[in-house]
């Protein structure tokens, strides 16, 4: 199979104190993994490890050869100082391409093309010359996702991307991520508190509580004891996350989470995706295909 990433008994420690203990899982091309767990359960540390910024204290992370750890499309949590930062959307998205350069950092024509495509993919191309500080929270998050796309070589790593967004904007954001995951064959790893919403989109779940409490498909997770106890902590308990919602006639989601309108109806899914655009032929790929080893979607 197209195994992208495998963690074998991976642990992380700060000052010899283990904060993440023995994590084992593997991800394949096109998977959508939700990492859930309470505060302090080691999600952020694991993320640092996946980015290669923190070395495991034990175990090993095996990446597929083609997966350069620098070319992970990372969407970190927003910092307060970004709110009034003078930078255009184009400048921000282009900076995603810096992982392909060293100390001398001039953007190539290819970089400009890739970031233009990423902006188009997330419908922020119209904002390219606008200043980041003038955007709304939802627009900013889409710009940062565009930057992640421009940086990415097929793997996206999103750290609580909908924190601070209102439900409707968050819902729209989840829909975009899902479209990128399905249409462009991007593998997605998302850390989220917003468990009910993620359950609807994710194919796999990793539940952390300092050690690995659960890893498996979303379907199995929902049947598990771990999920039952975790989900019941929330106020809006719903053991049936697949609320058959969608969008009301007036445009509001019928349930508060990331349940979205059918993908076929979304205009974004008709656009050529970032990963297919890297293809020299520039051909688009039909929906519903499988992901092949090189990150492209096979027709069929």
């Amino acid at each position, binding site marked *: 199979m197209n195994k992208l990433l495998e963690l074998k008994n991976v642990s992380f420690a700060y000052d010899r104190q283990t904060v993440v203990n023995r994590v084992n899982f593997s991800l394949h091309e096109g998977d959508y993994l939700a990492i859930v767990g309470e505060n302090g359960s080691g999600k952020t540390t694991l993320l640092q490890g996946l*980015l*290669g*910024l923190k070395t495991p204290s034990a175990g090993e992370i095996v990446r597929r050869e083609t997966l350069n750890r*620098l070319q*992970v499309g*990372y969407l*970190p*949590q927003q*910092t307060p*100082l*970004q709110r009034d*930062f*003078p*930078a*255009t959307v184009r*400048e*921000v998205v*282009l*900076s*995603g391409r*810096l*992982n392909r*350069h060293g*100390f*001398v*950092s*001039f*953007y190539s024509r290819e970089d400009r093309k890739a970031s233009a495509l990423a902006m188009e993919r997330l419908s922020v191309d119209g904002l390219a*010359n*606008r*200043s980041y*500080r*003038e955007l709304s929270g939802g627009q900013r998050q889409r710009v940062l996702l565009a*930057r992640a796309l421009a*940086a990415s070589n097929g793997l996206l790593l999103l750290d609580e991307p909908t924190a601070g967004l209102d439900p409707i904007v968050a819902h729209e954001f989840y829909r975009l991520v899902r479209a990128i995951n399905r249409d462009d064959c991007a593998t997605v790893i998302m850390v989220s508190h917003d468990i009910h919403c993620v359950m609807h989109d994710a194919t796999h779940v990793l539940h952390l509580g300092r050690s690995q409490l659960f890893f498996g498909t979303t379907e199995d997770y929902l049947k598990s004891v771990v999920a039952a106890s975790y989900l019941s902590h929330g106020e809006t308990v719903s053991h049936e996350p697949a609320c058959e919602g969608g969008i009301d006639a007036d445009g509001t989601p019928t349930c508060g989470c990331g349940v979205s309108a059918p993908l076929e109806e979304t205009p974004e899914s008709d656009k050529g995706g970032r990963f297919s655009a890297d293809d020299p032929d520039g051909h688009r790929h039909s929906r519903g295909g499988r992901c092949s080893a090189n990150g492209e979607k096979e027709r069929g």
Partner: protein
Amino acid sequence: MAGLISHFFSYSFLLRALIGGSLVAICAALIGTSLVLKRYAMIGDGLSHVGFGALAAAMALSASPLAVALPVVILTAFLLLRLSTNNRIHGDAAIAMISSASMAAGVIVISLTSGLNTDFYNFMFGSILAMSRTDMTLSIILSFVVLVLFLFSYNNLFAVTFDESFARASGISAGFWNAVLAVIASVTIVLGMRVMGAILISSLIIFPPLSAMRLFGSFKGVTVASAVIALVCFSTGLFLSYALDLPAGPVIVIVNFLCFLLFSWFGWLKKLKRA
């Protein structure tokens, strides 16, 4: 007026102050953009006070001022950066502590040795006579280094300023760039201190980027504009200080402040137009 200008250019010390000072002002504005956006602006203020202490010590020991002040200020800059990223002591409190302690030490050293005389006054508020030939040469070298750095690594610097986490994940060493900023800030402050004075030098770092941010919404726009603002305000201020026979530092700061007000007004007009 024309006579005044030709007089101005006939003095070599004034020319040195103009050339060296403008170059330092441009460097300060360029790195100031990053420092202000990263909320490190107060580090500049802290460093200048440490520089004052070091200069006083150098005078007491009759050592070369630059030879003492440069290493001391660079070391302090690293220390302050470490403290800022360390949560145990808050960065701003650490800066306030170190800067007032070294200021106090400097004043004591000066009053024990030469007394609070003209030298003291010049240290505090700057003098257009103070730019020596060595200072000017160093300013030229510094600005060359800064310009080369900006030319080749401008985009990396942007990435580190905008989003350190993302930059790290892209393989850009945030630690390295913070260190580079610290060293440049230190050298800029020590060189600029003679003309601007210890109390006022940090304004060269803070004012031009802040003015530029009022009006420009892109990082490139802010960077270029703050360099231009720095150059224009510094030379205007220096000339006025000569013409009005006032200390250079305060006049340059006031020119910068007026420029800030002007840009705020432009920014306000721009916003009004859009709305």
